Structures are given as structure tokens and as C-alpha cells.
């Protein structure tokens, strides 16, 4: 449907993560608009938010669950950045927490800000002079371009396929309902038809699945779990130390050094990941080591990404990986922001040693291989960039500026999916409760508009076109 989707300075209260992208430490969520203070009071459970005073407080979601704690500062308008009532919530900067705060604000009536919208309001409320207008325009421009790119990135791969499939099914459903309304003489008496309710139930299941998978996809870009695996002594612990930039795991030339999981939280070009080192996989009589091996295998099967390491100078370690790949199975439930065929990356370690350069890769297997040296650090920069690209979809791999955008694009998409799901569920109850077709249609229209904000609007004309090609209508 064509409906004016755009919004401008008006009575909406807007919310967004305001901390500079890509930097850890504090995270700021900013609210602006007439309800900013009310919404913040609900989140902080504070009765008063004195102006310009840093209140140390907890942040709660709508059910009262504490999400985080931090500072809440109110800047009542007009003496604020935007000229409207503004509240800043400063928390611990974990993107997951920031996301939860933004969602809570939205549930409480705020709306996700558009790129550059805070500045735009500031300008429109006379908080900036004429000379700054161009700058604001440029900012809106740049921000919207970047967010458009991020949205495109977020829409790649599985996600886009799933979304388009969803939208198509919904169009087919709406075609039935709208046709029944606009062409009653054509005997399209449908709402009661089991086909419709089944289609709707199926759609709801699809949306919910996509939501779950996308949510873990969002988590992936925030704290993906990477697991190192391989035969003993191939240099797994050395790789971990290299990636951490510090000696975290014990390295010796004794096979079987690592016995238990070693977990490290680190950032790859600013992207947070959890890297797990494991015991070298081998059959052993040592009970402790055997338990380590079991844990290693378990960790691999739950990994977002497995880094399978072998030693270029040790053909048996390569053979080992080859066999392991055959039997390795994961239930990859997350949707990567990038198109990847498998969630295993093979690391060919010890490239500093004099080895056969031709001995490359795994012909016939669709895995990415990287040749590095944990000793010299050779190729680690490339490896890091490659990992960042895989996890964020950012082709530059630099991680700068993209994390926030890809992330917020994806989380915008999630909000739309949530709303779409609500519309579908409401449509379903409208049918079961025996409400009129026009109310069912209204909920479906709402759901479609939400999906449309992700994968493109479906115009009325397109919908009518579908109706006319599906039914022989007209006298």
C-alpha cells in the first residue's frame, strides 16, 4: 500500500543509540521528543529526573527486569541539543544491552530515529544557524547513504531470501482477502476456507523462525563464538595468543598441552568475539585429556565459526582435519550477514617453516583456508579482516563504523519483523473470533507495510495486479 511513511519533526518521540560507532566503553541511548522524559522515567523507574542531573540508576525493560545500570540525564527543551525534551541513558556499551534499551523505549511509545534525525530536529527547532543547515543536510545525506548500504548488507544472503519468501506468501494471502472484499460477486468466499487459516498459521511460523534466526544473527555480530580445533601441537594455542595479541594460553612443544577449554573475550578490529581454545583432538587413555577432547568436540558443534588448524609441516595433521571435516556436523541456526557455505575456516599454520607451497587447501571441499604463521604473525592481519567480514558483512573488514550500522539496520529489520508478526497474529485472532474480513485485511496490511519497510513496498497497484491475474474478475 502506498502510505506516507515518512516522518518529520512532529509529536513523535525518537530513540537511537548515540554513542560513536565501533568504540567500546560507555554506550549512550538518546531519546528526544515530547515523551522522552516519560519514557525514561518508565525505564529507570525514577519518579523524578531532575534537569541536567546525572542520576545513577537501573535500566529496566517493560516487565521490570533489570537490563543494566548507568546514568540517566534529562535535558528538558528548549535548552537541549534538539530543542525538544532529551534524555540520555548511559550504560555499559554492550550492543546487546543498548539494543534492549532501544527496544524497551520503542515498546513504551518511542520510534526508532532515522539517520541524522536528531540533528535535523535540532536544526528545525532553531538550535543551529543557517550556516549549519548545509552541514545538517550533508549529515542526513551521508548517514542515510551509510545506513542504506548497511541495510543492503543486512539484507544479503539467507536473510533476504527468507524475507522475500515471506513477503510473497503474504501477498498471496492478501490477494485472497482483498479479492473477497472488492469482488464479492465473484464467489471468492474465503475467510472461512481452511486454506486461508492454514496459510496464515504457516506464515506466522515462518516469521517467528526468521525472528529467532535473525536474532541469533544479530548476536553473532556482537559476540560470535569462535572455536579453535585441530590435532595436538599444530599451534592452536599459539593462534589464540596471536589473535589476542597477548600470551593467554600456555604454549609448549609437548603434544597435549591444552587440556581444558580456554575462553578469551577479545575484539577483532573492534568486533567483539569469544575465542575458545581446545585440547588437541586425539585418542587418549588419559582421563583428563579425554574429557578435554570431549569438551573440544562439544564446543565445536556449538560454535558460530570453527577455526580448524593444522600444521603445514605435519601431513598427518592435515589428514586429520580432512577426516574431521567429513564427520563434522553443526546445526547452523544463525543467519550470517554474509553468504557462507560452511562455518569452518581452515588455518594452515607454521607457514614460516620450509614447506611445500603446492600443498594447498582441500580440493573439492567448500572451505576457506588461510595460511598463517603464529610464530611470525604472517597473514594475521588478513585473517582478522576476513573474520570481521564474515561476521559483519563489511567488505572492508576494517570494522570501523560498520558494526553499528549493520547492527542497527538489522535490528531495525527485527523490529519490523516483530510488528509484522503481531499483525499476522492479530489477523488470525480476528478470523477465529469471527470479525469481518475488513479487519483481517487491516491487520494483514499492517504486517505487509512492516515487511515492506525491509524488502520493498508492495503497492496497491501490484496487489490489484495479482488479484486480476489470480482470479477471473470483472463483468
Amino acid at each position, binding site marked *: 500500500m502506498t502510505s506516507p511513511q515518512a516522518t518529520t519533526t512532529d509529536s513523535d518521540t525518537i530513540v537511537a543509540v548515540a554513542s560513536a560507532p565501533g568504540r567500546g566503553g560507555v554506550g549512550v541511548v538518546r531519546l528526544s521528543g515530547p515523551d522522552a522524559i516519560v519514557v525514561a522515567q518508565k525505564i529507570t523507574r525514577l519518579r523524578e529526573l531532575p534537569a541536567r542531573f546525572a542520576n545513577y540508576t537501573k535500566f529496566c525493560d517493560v516487565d521490570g527486569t533489570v537490563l543494566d545500570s548507568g546514568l540517566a540525564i534529562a535535558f528538558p527543551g528548549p535548552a537541549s541539543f534538539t530543542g525538544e525534551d532529551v534524555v540520555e541513558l548511559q550504560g555499559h556499551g554492550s550492543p546487546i544491552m543498548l539494543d534492549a534499551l532501544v527496544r524497551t523505549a520503542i515498546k513504551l511509545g518511542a520510534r526508532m530515529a532515522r539517520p541524522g534525525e536528531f540533528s535535523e530536529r535540532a536544526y528545525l527547532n532553531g538550535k543551529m544557524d543557517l550556516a549549519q543547515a548545509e552541514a545538517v543536510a550533508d549529515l542526513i545525506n551521508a548517514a542515510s547513504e551509510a545506513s542504506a548500504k548497511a541495510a543492503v548488507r543486512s539484507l544479503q544472503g539467507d536473510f533476504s531470501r527468507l524475507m522475500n519468501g515471506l513477503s510473497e506468501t503474504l501477498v498471496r494471502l492478501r490477494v485472497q482477502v482483498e479479492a473477497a472484499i472488492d469482488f464479492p460477486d465473484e464467489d471468492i468466499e474465503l475467510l472461512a476456507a481452511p486454506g486461508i487459516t492454514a496459510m496464515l498459521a504457516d506464515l506466522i511460523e515462518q516469521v517467528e523462525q526468521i525472528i529467532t534466526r535473525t536474532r541469533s544473527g544479530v548476536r553473532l555480530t556482537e559476540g560470535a563464538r569462535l572455536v579453535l580445533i585441530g590435532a595436538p601441537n599444530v599451534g592452536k594455542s599459539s593462534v589464540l595468543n596471536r589473535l589476542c595479541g597477548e600470551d593467554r594460553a600456555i604454549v609448549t612443544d609437548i603434544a597435549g598441552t591444552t587440556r581444558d577449554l580456554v575462553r578469551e573475550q577479545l575484539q577483532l578490529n573492534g568486533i567483539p568475539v569469544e575465542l575458545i581454545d581446545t585440547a588437541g583432538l586425539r585418542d587418549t587413555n588419559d582421563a583428563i585429556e579425554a574429557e578435554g577432547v570431549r569438551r573440544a568436540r562439544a564446543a565445536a558443534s556449538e560454535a558460530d565459526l570453527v577455526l580448524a588448524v593444522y600444521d603445514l609441516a605435519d601431513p598427518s595433521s592435515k589428514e586429520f582435519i580432512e577426516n574431521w571435516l567429513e564427520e563434522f556436523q553443526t546445526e547452523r541456526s544463525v543467519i550470517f550477514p554474509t553468504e557462507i557455505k560452511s562455518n569452518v575456516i581452515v588455518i594452515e599454520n607454521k607457514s614460516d617453516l620450509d614447506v611445500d607451497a603446492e600443498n594447498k587447501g582441500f580440493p573439492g571441499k567448500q572451505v576457506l583456508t588461510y595460511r598463517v604463521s603464529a610464530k611470525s604473525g604472517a597473514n594475521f592481519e588478513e585473517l582478522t579482516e576476513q573474520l570481521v567480514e564474515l561476521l559483519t558483512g563489511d567488505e572492508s573488514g576494517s570494522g570501523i563504523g560498520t558494526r553499528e550500522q549493520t547492527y542497527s539496520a538489522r535490528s531495525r529489520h527485527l523490529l519490523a519483523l516483530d510488528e509484522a508478526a503481531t499483525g499476522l497474529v492479530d489477523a488470525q485472532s480476528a478470523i477465529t473470533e469471527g470479525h*469481518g474480513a475488513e479487519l483481517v485485511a487491516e491487520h494483514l496490511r499492517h504486517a505487509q507495510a512492516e515487511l515492506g519497510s525491509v524488502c520493498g513496498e508492495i503497492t496497491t497497484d501490484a496487489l490489484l495486479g495479482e488479484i486480476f491475474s489470480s482470479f477471473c474478475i470483472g463483468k
Partner: protein
Amino acid sequence: MTTSNSTDKKPTAAELHPDAFDVIVIGGGHAGCEAALAAARLGATTLLLTQSIDTIGQMSCNPAIGGIGKSHLVREIDALGGMMARVTDKAGIQFRVLNARKGPAVRATRAQADRVLYRNAARVAIEAQPNLQMFQQSVTDLEVTNDRVTGVVTQMGLTFRAAAVVLTTGTFLGGKIHIGMQRHQGGRAGDAPSNALADRLRALPLNVGRLKTGTPPRIDARSVDFTVMGQQPGDEPRPTMSKFSTPADHPRQVPCYITYTNETTHNIIRGGLDRSPLYSGKIEGTGPRYCPSIEDKVMRFADRNEHQIFVEPEGLDANELYPNGISTSLPFDVQMQFVRSIKGFENAHITRPGYAIEYDYFDPRDLQYSLETKVIEGLYFAGQINGTTGYEEAAAQGLMAGANAALKIAGKGIWCPRRDEAYIGVLVDDLINLGTNEPYRMFTSRAEYRLRLREDNADLRLTQQGYDLGLVSEEQYATFKRERATVDAITAHLKKQHLRPGSDMAAALSAATGEHISKDQSSTDYLKRPKVTAIALQPLLAELDLSEAKEAGVDLDAALTQAGVEIKYEGYIKRQDLEIDRVKRHESIRIPASLDYATIEGLSNELREKLLATKPASLAKAARVPGITPAALSLLMVHAQKHAKNPKKVPGNAATEEQESTSRGEQHQG
């Protein structure tokens, strides 16, 4: 071309016959009638010029008014003081409520009309209208000076002057009729096309296209066997089209019939396709997708072994039948054969062959919200020439164009209801922003605010606006006010009523509706249950004194029903209110006509061109430009604001341009 010789002393009949008017309407079809009436109601001295006074209000095709989406338009015309609904009530010979089992928003009244009665009633309405004169002449030329229309010239060479001219010539411009491989020029069967005028208009800087539509053969009722067909009587209680009519205004009622095509019919049609103008490429115009010819249906839906035909009487005294569903341009011999293969039509005698007609239409994107062309000041277009189809769509535009022409003469601003106020608003907004590449018909699915654009509340949405403009009579307005007050009183009363389980009232209501009251609840919550009708809550009104309204003639059941509808939809409508508020605020952000789109960084070239072509007057209008993004709107807003703060920086005389944009852009909105 008369632009140059307009100063020549033509032998006008000035002394004998007035030749200067405020508004001239060309064409006495459905658009023309409403246009002329609306202009005259607003006090403009108006001339209706039409090819033939005898065909005023002629139904070119299907003898029916209303239907889903369309009846909504008719109710709106009614609420604005127009004639279509009242005329339909004088001519309707079968009335039905479509979607009766669906909710009130999509319920629609449809009337089968007696062609002759309709024409007569239309003519009576035109003749009764003060300030309005008719004259029978075909218009051959427009007088245009400095891109401003000044008058029209007729076939006889008569000149009539006016600063506003509304063109409503339907399918007549360059009309070409096809029956099989034969074709001839015509405006519709039996009428000459308007070729001189078409040539003249084609010379104006307007975008012209070709569209096509068709009509079925008509059949002599005496040669039809109705006993083998399904009968479809009208509905009881019988609805009326106008709020101001009663079933007593209706003529005698008759039923319609239903029959079907069959495989034999389809085979005959397939056999004739090589001589079909549609399938042999003779027709270049695009036809409507929803009103396909029978040959289209057979080809596109090859798996269907029958298609429904509604057999509709053309009138009470007429023996002709309109077989709704078999529009065709196949050769006449094929038409005869396939008609006779249809059940009940075995011996059918065709009185007029079916045909397709191709005609010129003007890209409605060249129009403003007032339906005035952007390039020729004072020239308004309404009806089929704007790419629409249907009497109701034509009439709605006619009313808009006629009213705006008169407003302009009176020095007032443009008036157009918003999309959330009226289907008329949806129609105009869609046309001028999106254009159309097939004949545009109204559907409820085109209205995003469908739940509030209902038949039952057309008056509530529009009568106040209409009255403020001068379109609505004092009498109609007084009725409206009374009804409104009654509905409000009922709503307020219902909201105060609580239902307690076990009370006598609860027991009575449960018994009446079959819906139990198991916990304490407000009567409005109870009413929101699908099976509970407002009428069933009648007992709750016992303590409300409505005697005054009753004495004044207010239909209390209708008022209760309307209060009920509003309560039932309340939640949905509130949700839409937020969206509408935003549109309204965007309406208040004006975009100066002198805004230089070329200097705005960040607009795509495509968008820049579209904006340049449409020059939206406000942010809300810009939001309707196809392909606009939220970011582009933000940019426009920032630049509009910047421009407003510092207009001197703009090259050219910014002061006068500013002035112009406010006086032109100012809108009356309710």
C-alpha cells in the same frame, strides 16, 4: 487554432444570447453534470455545453450505479450536495447491499438503473439548478491566450467566454469503435466523436495516451428463456443510494438473472480470435485488467469451464437486456454464435452489437489537486479523459473540478479532501501523483484508511467542509447537524453504560445476541464482539431522551447503527490517527515553488526530475511522489526551512514567488 484570431470580430450571438460566463462545462455526461451543478451551487454563472441535451446523464455502458468502492464515492457526492445518489434513487430498479456479511466499512450499495429514468432525473436536476444554463453544441476549439483559457468555440462558430473551463468529454476524443476487423470513428455507439477538439487538445503541451474499453452486445428480453436462469432479486429491506431518499422514491423493482458461459461458448470464441481486433493487434489502447472482454477471460483463464453472466434489465419499459460479463469486440457473426450457445440465450436476438472503443486520455499527472491543468490556467479536466472509468469516478471528479473552477473565479484557494477523508481524495491523489496506464477504477483496497471511509459516515466526513465551501444547502446541513448530535448523544450514553453479569439487562442482551456476559464490562466492549450488533443494544437507550431528534425526523436506528460502527472500529481508527496527524503536519510544511531542486545534494536524479515535474506544494504532497525516501523528505524539509528563513538568497524575485505559492497553495481542509 483560435489563439490568434480571438480578437477578430466573430458574429457572436451576444446580444440575443449571453456569451460570457464564470464557468463553462463541456460535456453533459456524469462528470459534466456534477461539475456544472457544483459550480452553480457555489454561485458561479455556469454554462453546460454538450453535444446533445437528450443524452445528458446518459449511461454509456452498464446500467448500474454503485458497487464496492464506487458507492462510497456516490455517498460522498451526496454528502457534498451532488445529484448522483438522488438521481439513482429515482431510477433504480433493483437495489442490493454488497458485502452485507462483511463489516460496515466495505458494505456497498449497488443499484440497477433504468437508463431512461436516469437520464430524465439527471436532466430535471440540471434544469432545477439556479445559475446554470444548458446549450446544445459540440465544442470544437478552446480559446487560449498567454497560457490562460478565455473561452470556447462551438461547431457553429459561436464563442462563449469564461475564465474557467471544465472539460468532461468522456470517451469522445478521437474515439474509434471496433467490431471485429471493422472500425469506425465514434464517441460511443450512436454518437459522433470529438475530433476537432481532440486535435486542438493534442496541440497543447499535455501528455496524451490511448485507452480502450468495451461493452457487451444487448439482447432482446422477449427472446430469452429466464426459466432456466438463476433469479437474483433485490435486497429487503431495500437500501437507498442517497441519505435523503426513501424506498418510496424508487420506481417499481425487478429482479436480475444469472447464467453462465460453457465450453461450447469458449470454443466459438477461440475460433473467432483471428478476427478479434484485440488479438490481431488492431487495438493499441490498454484496457482495464478487471473488466476484461470475454475473449480475454477465455484466453487468460483457460482452465475455467464457465464464466458468470449477470443478466440485467436496461429499464422497466425497455425490452433490452445487458448481459454483464461478456463485453466483446469480436466480429458480429461470432457474437451471435457465442451468445446463442449460452443457457437461456439459445434463441436470443441481439439488438446492438458489442464493441470496443479506443479514445484519447490525458496523463492526469499534468493536473493539480484542483484538477486544473498545470500548463493552461483555468482549464480543468474531469472524468474519463483523465484515464478513469466508471460513472461514479467521473462524477466525483466532476464535482471536484466544478467546485474548484468556481472557487478560483471567486479568488479562493484549492479544495481537495485528503486521503483519510474521502475516496474522492484517494482518487484525485492517486491520479495526479501516480497517473494510470489502464482505465482507473475505484476499489476499497486503494484506500489505506478504508475503515474510516465508509458509506455510513460520508456526511460526517464531508458535509461540514461542503457547507463551508457553499456546496451544501442549509437544509441538508441542518439535517446533518441534527443527525450528528443524535449519534454523539447515543455514543456518549453507550460509553457510560456498564453491564453486570446476572443483571436483568445482561440477561436480556445475552438472550438477544447469544453472547454471554460473564464479567463486568462496559457496553462498548461488549459491542466490540463481532456478533453483537448496535441495534441489539437498543434497550440500553431506554433512559436516553431522544424524543426531540425523533420528532425532527432523525432515523434513530440509523443513528444507533452508526454510533455502533464507530465504537466497533474505535481501536483501529485510533491507530490510524497517529499516521494522519503526521500527514496533517506535513501539510503545514510548505515547499516554496521557487525551491531549486538542482542544488539539493543527495537527491537522486530520478527523484529530482519527479519533484521538478510535480512541484509539490507541501511536504505531505512530496511524500506522495513515487520513489521518495524518508531521507529525501528530510532534505526537502531542511531546505524548505532554510529557504523560508532566507528567501533573498534565491535567484529571481523571491518575494512574488513566495506570495504566489501561498495564495495558490492555500487549501480549505476540514
